[in-house]
């Protein structure tokens, strides 16, 4: 019999049968009590302007309208910024982005509320907006002070290096496009208490921000989240929807539901930071980087939000898997009149990694070498060249193993040659191939966030109620944590009841973010289990006089002490009758980590996730269109709790990253208006975009050397970055048109247009 019988089990997501039958309840599906009102937000059609007058008289007169609310209705803090101020719920004097909320309406139906918002008359004094990174750099318009980090003496080593390159590179923004948009439902209770249902990754912060807005205490606000229809970072700090909904409910003293429609969601809420970098690099003939200087700028939008942490993670991942002996990076956090850029799977890490991957790709092309070899010769080593630029010793490095295994498994070398032949034989269609590595650090870099709580009750019929601070957003955290708990108690999975995340059960939780939801909350749940077990074992030992025996084994519904065994169900009943507590909280805080933000040194991560991917593409050089012929992935998931769910994260993360680097393009007009606001203009990958061959494997030798639940490694964010190979395969195909003699200039996303323009530019250089 297997040692652990629920771990490693490919069981379906706990809600799968509810998903497929339409019975899984999302916030908008909750049946409303009689008298519920429906909200809608009125927002600014200017990106940068002084507010002269907001005339809502026609709005109020509109059919079905019960109330309107503006900044003057806010008794407390008029800001939803989680870390810094700067995100007013309704600005008082000045709008700073196209789409910024200005007022809200409560009406008898969503349709009538939305119709009413269109009747507002707002008079602005329009100011010139700053929209792009380059404009902000030129005007030195920054949202937070940038950092300058340095190791060694890159200036000197670049000068001494035999080879030198410089250039610049852009990666684009990205809309989360969670299928369930932002939505909240608030029910007023006695004593001005509010019960808040919200589609959020961060119930505790939702609670605190609503409390501060209403000048109430946190203990008067309860936030519940059963599941959300995708988050990807887009529901980590977006508190506008829930705050405005709570404001309307508080003002009208009626239940209010507020659901943004897709366009409003895209217009009003934040997206991924786009990044612009300039670099200088010195390297030897093997392509080993000897010195590197980077200026790294990002579009942060109109407020700080999480931009500090996101740009910090970009700095922490500028090395990806490479040892950079002499490096200097200066970053610039640009303030623009666009919606505040926010968390998105990868959280700056992917943007940082694309910078170094592009540099390595260019070095390889300059030296006319296979970039796989150049990547390898820059990898961190096990015993030397293993200290990161922020001073952390890498102890769990498996990138060489993964990379070499994948080269073999994917038949990379043969295909590399075959593609060169294909390109000689074909004039208009060209193929490209690339292999890229991923090393991604796990933990919140803001150390205090690395904590979690859980609550477990065992009822007298021995059914178990499980609650923890993590949010189920599709990643299967509830399923995995229930598997861990069932396993620890030696019970069937079905005995565990998964319940809504609830701020009144587990307080002061961190956002479900930074890929660490299961690591943190799973460990907290196991802590609760072990506390209950201590109670039970103490009781059994005393009652059955089993003094010498140390550890009990929980298996198949039994509790075994050497030769004696007890039925779990009967012991629970007995324990209750003997007045033994059958409920416990659990708590976890990540060990070992520390980080000095001032000196930019320490151990910000408990461990690293590793992976690699090979992508082969074909492009049409007459139109710039591209397709992905084949992808091979090898990803370290440690000892996976549920390999089926991990596989889902890896594949889904890859395709999301593919979208980021190919077709997903946010367009802002020079006046700051966003024009890609719905699926008709903003394209995320559809089924026909997925790789024609998609071979995904979990690294079988994987095991987390740190004490993480089940020795597993997370698969939340890291797989997104596997898609980097898509971009560089496209670049490889473009380079083939110069017979691999020139370095193509290509920015992300590599849309058909960018590819065609890159081909054209390259052709001009060749001729």
């Amino acid at each position, binding site marked *: 019999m297997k040692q652990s019988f629920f771990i490693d089990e*490919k069981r*379906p*997501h706990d*809600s*799968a*049968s509810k*998903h*497929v*039958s*339409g019975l899984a309840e*999302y916030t*908008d599906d909750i*049946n409303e009590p009689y008298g519920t009102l429906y909200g809608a937000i009125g927002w600014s059609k200017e990106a940068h302007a002084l507010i002269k007058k907001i005339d809502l008289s026609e709005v109020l007169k509109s059919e079905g309208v019960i109330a309107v609310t503006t900044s003057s209705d806010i008794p407390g803090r008029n800001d939803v910024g989680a870390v810094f101020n700067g995100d007013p719920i309704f600005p008082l004097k000045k709008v700073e982005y196209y789409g910024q909320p200005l007022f809200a309406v409560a009406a008898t139906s969503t*349709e009538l509320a939305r119709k009413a918002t269109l009747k507002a008359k707002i008079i602005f004094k329009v100011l010139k907006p700053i929209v792009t990174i380059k404009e902000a750099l030129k005007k030195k318009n920054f949202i937070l002070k940038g950092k300058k980090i340095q190791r060694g003496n890159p200036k000197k080593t670049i000068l001494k290096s035999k080879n030198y390159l410089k250039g610049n590179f852009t990666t684009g923004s990205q809309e*989360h*496009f*969670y*299928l*369930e948009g932002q939505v909240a439902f608030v029910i007023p209770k006695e004593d001005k208490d509010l019960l808040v249902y919200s589609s959020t990754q961060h119930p505790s912060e939702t609670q605190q921000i609503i409390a501060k807005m209403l000048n109430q205490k946190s203990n008067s606000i309860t936030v519940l989240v059963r*599941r*959300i*229809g*995708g988050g990807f970072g887009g529901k980590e700090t977006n508190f506008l929807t829930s705050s405005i909904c709570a404001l309307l409910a508080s003002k009208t003293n009626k239940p209010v539901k507020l659901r943004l*429609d*897709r366009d409003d969601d895209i217009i009003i809420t934040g997206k991924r930071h786009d990044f612009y970098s300039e670099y200088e690099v010195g390297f030897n003939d093997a392509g080993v980087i000897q010195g590197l200087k980077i200026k790294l700028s990002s579009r942060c939008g109109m407020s700080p939000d999480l931009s500090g942490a996101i740009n910090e993670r970009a700095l922490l991942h500028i090395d990806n898997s490479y040892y950079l002996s002499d490096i200097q990076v200066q970053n610039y956090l640009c303030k623009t009149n666009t919606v505040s850029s926010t968390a998105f799977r990868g959280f700056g890490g992917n943007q940082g990694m694309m910078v170094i991957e592009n540099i390595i790709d260019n070095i390889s092309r300059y030296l006319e070498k296979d970039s796989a070899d150049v990547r390898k010769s820059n990898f961190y080593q096990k015993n030397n060249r293993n200290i990161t630029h922020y001073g952390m010793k890498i102890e769990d490095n498996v990138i060489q193993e993964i990379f070499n295994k994948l080269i073999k498994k994917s038949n990379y070398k043969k295909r590399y040659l075959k593609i060169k032949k294909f390109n000689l034989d074909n004039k208009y*269609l060209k193929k490209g191939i690339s292999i890229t590595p991923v090393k991604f650090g796990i933990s919140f870099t803001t150390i205090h966030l690395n904590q979690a709580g859980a609550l477990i009750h065992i009822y007298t019929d021995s059914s178990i109620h499980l609650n923890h601070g993590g949010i189920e957003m*599709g*990643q299967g955290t509830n399923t995995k944590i229930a598997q861990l708990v069932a396993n620890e108690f030696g019970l069937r999975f079905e005995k565990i009841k998964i319940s809504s995340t609830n701020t009144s059960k587990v307080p002061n939780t961190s956002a479900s973010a930074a890929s660490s939801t299961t690591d943190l909350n799973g460990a907290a749940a196991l802590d609760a289990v072990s506390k209950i077990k201590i109670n039970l074992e103490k009781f059994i030992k005393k009652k059955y006089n089993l003094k010498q025996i140390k550890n009990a084994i929980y298996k198949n519904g039994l509790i075994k002490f050497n030769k004696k065994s007890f039925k779990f169900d009967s012991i629970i009943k007995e324990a209750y009758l003997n007045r033994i507590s059958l409920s416990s909280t659990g708590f976890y805080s990540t060990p070992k980590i520390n980080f000095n933000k001032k000196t930019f040194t320490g151990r910000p991560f408990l461990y690293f996730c590793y992976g690699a991917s090979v992508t082969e593409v*074909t492009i*049409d050089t*007459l*139109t*710039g269109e*591209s*397709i992905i012929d084949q992808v091979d992935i090898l990803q370290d998931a440690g000892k996976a709790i549920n390999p*089926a769910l991990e596989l*889902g994260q890896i*594949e*889904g*993360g890859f*395709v*999301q990253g593919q979208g980021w680097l190919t077709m997903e393009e946010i*367009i802002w007009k020079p006046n700051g208006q966003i*024009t*890609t606001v*719905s*699926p*008709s203009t903003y394209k*995320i*990958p*559809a*089924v*026909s*975009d*997925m790789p024609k061959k*998609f071979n995904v494997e979990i690294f079988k030798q994987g095991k987390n050397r740190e004490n993480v639940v089940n020795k597993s490694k997370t698969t939340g964010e890291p797989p997104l970055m596997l898609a980097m190979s898509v971009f560089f395969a496209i670049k490889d195909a473009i380079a083939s048109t110069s017979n691999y003699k020139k370095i193509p200039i290509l920015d992300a996303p590599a*849309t*058909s247009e960018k590819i*065609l*323009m890159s081909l054209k530019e390259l052709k001009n250089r060749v001729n």
Partner: protein
Amino acid sequence: MSSNIIRFVFENKIHEIKNLDPNETILNFIRLRLKKTGTKEGCAEGGCGACTVVIGELKKNNIVYKAINSCIAFTTSLEGKQLLVVEDLMQKDGSLHPVQSAMVNFHGSQCGFCTPGFVMSLFSMYKNNTSYDKKTIEESISGNLCRCTGYRPIIDAAKSLNNKKPDQFKINEKKTINLLKKIRPENIYINNKNKKYFAPRTVIELKKIIKKNPNLKFLSGGTDLALIVTKQKKDIENIIYLNSIDELNYIKENNKYIEIGATTPLRKFELFIKKYYPDFNTILKRYGSIQIRNIATIAGNIATASPIGDSLPLLLSLDASICIENFNSKTILSLKDFFISYRKTKLKKGQFISSIRIPIYKKNIFKAYKISKRIDDDISSVCASFNVIIVNKRIKNIKIAYGGMAPIPKRAIHCEKILLNSDFSEEVILKAQISLKTDFQPINDMRASKNYRMEIAKNLLFKCFTEIKNNKSIRLNY
């Protein structure tokens, strides 16, 4: 005889709704009135598939199942049909439909929000096919977006299906057919708070109505028109619905031309046109999702007159013509004379397109290309279509049309002139490419820049002639 009651089969009963709001979508009907919340709103524009439901239509004693976007279909369009939503698939004893079980077993859901839509699209595929290859599967779910899975597990779930064992709908089919037959076709006339809705059953009835009410908005599939309600949040006050008129749902052919009735769904047309113009079929498959093509019509695409309507450049290069009728007259107009300016046509009040005629060319080479950011379910940056006769390396006849290059879908007249009666040489093609600048001054928008548009317009011309010259197509294997 007319009625103000919309009748349809739902949950094994005939539902009757009196004086329905003609602007109410099926999605709002299901979620807000029936309080069945399995069907989701993802975008309210037919672009994500989360709202997919299945419509059963009686066709010669069989039920034909069609996946549609309930967010942009009006409840009135359910008249005489069966409505199936995701909650209907689970049996009373709680057992899952084979499509649902497959999705569970293959881990086809993560956050689960898009899942009901996928389930309904796959259900429709399951009912309409007996085997499920990758192409069929991809086509069936090309209008369903998933942000979590990357689609692989959903494809695997679909591949695992076989419908040899009858499901509950097959077992109940006779009952359902009897219920559908009980709903006798009637002209519908609704007046709800000054919103008027007419759904005539015959062309004669249609003409009577437009004679009296020349200000009606014609509604066909409504995949464009419905956005006035769902996106602009406006009312459409007077609607005349064409798709109840069965006599306009036809495809005829003779030696010279194919005639397509105005209410023929694109899906039916695309299957038919394949034997004459394979590229027309290829483009229509990428016109929009199957949910859209199940209800959208060519006539609707023409009347909407969008510069980026995908069928229009193809029809222009084929020199199609349209029949325009009002209550007492019928004229035939060449499509090239139909478009006046951005979204403006020669269609006058009270006039409607009754059919489209596409000439049959036996010796011509017909090619069409669509360039967009995404392969499926996207709007063209540029769509190009070429209709050529080459005799002894000389271009004897040529018609070229582009979409996305001007405020209207338009023929490339200057370019055609250069090519006509010319030798089919690189030099001539180069001259023709340059002349496109005289024909078109494209614009920048969120889909493409003007430079890119011009560049691909030129390259597609080159591609077309290179393909002809080498007798080998240069296409990515989508």
